[in-house]
């Protein structure tokens, strides 16, 4: 095997490829193999966690398109997921729409609602837009709990399990394949979107909106498109939560959910698809691990176990703060550093591609 000391593409196809280098393809292959074999070796507990990570990845990719790539801060992602969850759940429950169609319809409805809540971005940006989306979140939350005739209010809605070819997909094992396929599809979609004209427009608006409008990007339309795309994925994630749990409760879609997803993309890396996945995994698994720790020391050290829920909250905050101060580009950048190091190993004098995405 020849040693690489840099990236030198000789063909346009290679330059435009998502995974042009053999090492990248091997890595992807190994990861795909892991994903394929995982459900056969993992127990139900880990499968459940894996499903949660996959769903969170879809949502995080969506939020990252809006916040990381387009630079529009949204504190309303939880509300958008709620709209996806309730739309798909109610469509299937009351109208008997097949689950696949209702998930897709829910994503479309959420995209429309997201574009509507993106309207303030016509006049506002930065801090003021963040506060406007906070208001959107609060208003949707109020709707969820008080529009009892439709949402059932504080009561949970029970959603029938998805059925495929006559098989009820009510186990984590069955759902795993749907979740993983959706997450993979979302990642592929976002990766291709970001290198298209639209994606470049997103980044231009983020970096300098006036310059973007000068070179012919319709800033407002681009922002609305970003809101709609992001909400589409949020709705997808919300609908999948509904079918994963078979139950919809408003508590899963509060402002804390919005914050959780913002934390995922901060910790993972803004504007990075790989980062969305890494952040979703870390933020989903970290509390679960602390819970486990709590259960294991329940008998030996009950005092410490009693404090752990609070420790969990504090650790969540500390992780966000530490990443912001020490590695604002997140896990994605850390992983990029590792790759760069081995990319030209043992030659340290030339760094290859940095981990941009």
């Amino acid at each position, binding site marked *: 095997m020849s040693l690489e000391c840099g990236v030198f593409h000789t063909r346009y196809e290679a330059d435009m490829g998502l995974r042009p280098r053999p090492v990248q393809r091997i890595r992807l292959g190994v990861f795909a193999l892991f994903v394929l074999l995982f459900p056969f070796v993992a127990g139900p507990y880990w499968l459940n966690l894996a499903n949660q990570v996959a769903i969170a990845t879809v949502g995080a990719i969506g939020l990252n398109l809006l916040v990381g790539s387009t630079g529009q801060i949204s504190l309303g992602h939880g509300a958008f997921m709620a709209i996806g969850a309730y739309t798909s759940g109610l469509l299937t429950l009351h109208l008997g729409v097949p689950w696949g169609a209702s998930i897709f319809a829910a994503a479309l409805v959420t995209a429309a609602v997201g574009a509507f809540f993106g309207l303030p*971005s016509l006049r506002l940006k930065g801090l003021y837009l963040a506060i406007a989306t906070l208001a959107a979140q609060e208003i949707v939350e*109020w709707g969820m709990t*008080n529009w009892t005739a439709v949402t059932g209010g504080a009561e949970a809605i029970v959603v029938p399990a998805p059925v495929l070819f006559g098989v009820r997909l009510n186990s984590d094992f069955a759902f795993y394949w749907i979740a993983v396929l959706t997450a993979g599809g979302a990642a592929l979609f976002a990766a291709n979107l970001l290198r298209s004209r639209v994606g470049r427009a997103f980044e231009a608006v983020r970096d300098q909106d006036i310059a973007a409008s000068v070179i012919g990007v319709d800033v407002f339309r681009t922002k609305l498109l970003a809101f709609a795309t992001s909400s589409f994925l949020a709705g997808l994630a919300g609908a999948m939560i509904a079918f994963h749990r078979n139950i919809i409760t408003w508590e899963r879609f509060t402002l804390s959910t919005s914050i959780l997803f913002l934390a995922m993309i901060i910790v993972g890396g803004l504007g990075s698809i790989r980062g969305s996945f890494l952040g979703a995994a870390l933020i989903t698994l970290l509390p679960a691990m602390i819970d486990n720790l709590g259960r294991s020391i329940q008998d030996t050290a009950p005092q410490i176990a009693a404090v752990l829920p609070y420790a969990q909250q504090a650790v969540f905050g500390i992780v966000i703060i530490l990443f912001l101060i020490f590695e604002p580009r997140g896990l994605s950048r850390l992983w990029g550093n590792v790759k760069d190091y081995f990319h030209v190993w043992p030659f340290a004098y030339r760094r290859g591609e940095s981990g941009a995405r």
Partner: protein
Amino acid sequence: MDIFLQLTVSGLSTGMIYALAAAGLVVIYKASDVINFAQGDLLLLGTYLVFFSVAQTGLPWSLGVLLTLLLAVAVALAVERLVLRPLVGEPIISMIMVTIGLSSVLRGVIGAIWGPNPRSFDSFLPAGELAFGPATLATDRVLSIPIALAVLAGLGFFFRFTRDGIAMRAIADDQQAALSMGISIPRVFGVAWGLAAVSAAIGGIMLAGIVGVSPNVGSIGLRVFPVVILGGLDSIGGAVLGGAVIGLLEVYIGFYVGHGLNLVVPYVVLVLVLMIRPYGLFGKEVIERV
């Protein structure tokens, strides 16, 4: 009519506590352009610190309140130095997320120390009721209004007449020019966080008496946003008026309309204000616009 009076006083007293929290937000925003999502948690910290200083150590009220303020300022200065200072000049999303992270840390630490159960102790404001014609009103609620107004007036005085206050306005106006005039920006940021902690702690002390000491107090942090947007993000006077309007709106709607609408209408107001007059009633008209 007596119910209306009762509602008005209760709304005003809630509004003044909002105003105190909002004033902290305004001070920090004025000095450093950071919007502090942890302001409610500073309020929460205030209620627990006063519980600690008075009920747990057994100090008399005067010393206990002093200790509370000192501890609150110490925490705020540490936070400013360790968390906010390294991020000066970072994008807005980082600033928002770091204060959200901070809020989570504060809540976690407070929960770990004092647990989830509400605590109670003798209020420092006299209990009992005052009779205003046909209406009877809780004394502590009535008294909290002048106290809050006095504190807010003090803050207004600070901005208008003291050296640090004027320095803070200079920095808000033009950071570069302020720097070249020899104003120490780190010092001013420190003072801003200290003041925000003091106003939040005083709000917390009053809340501890009025609604008791419990983890729910932190939720006020979010209810403050309609207040500051209505009043203007950089105006203390706006915080007072915004606090009064939102506080009254909440109790009137809560009583006369119901359906939990009192919780959502402030946010509808917020959206309307943002669409029509984003700088609020008294804010400066230079906001980032598209």
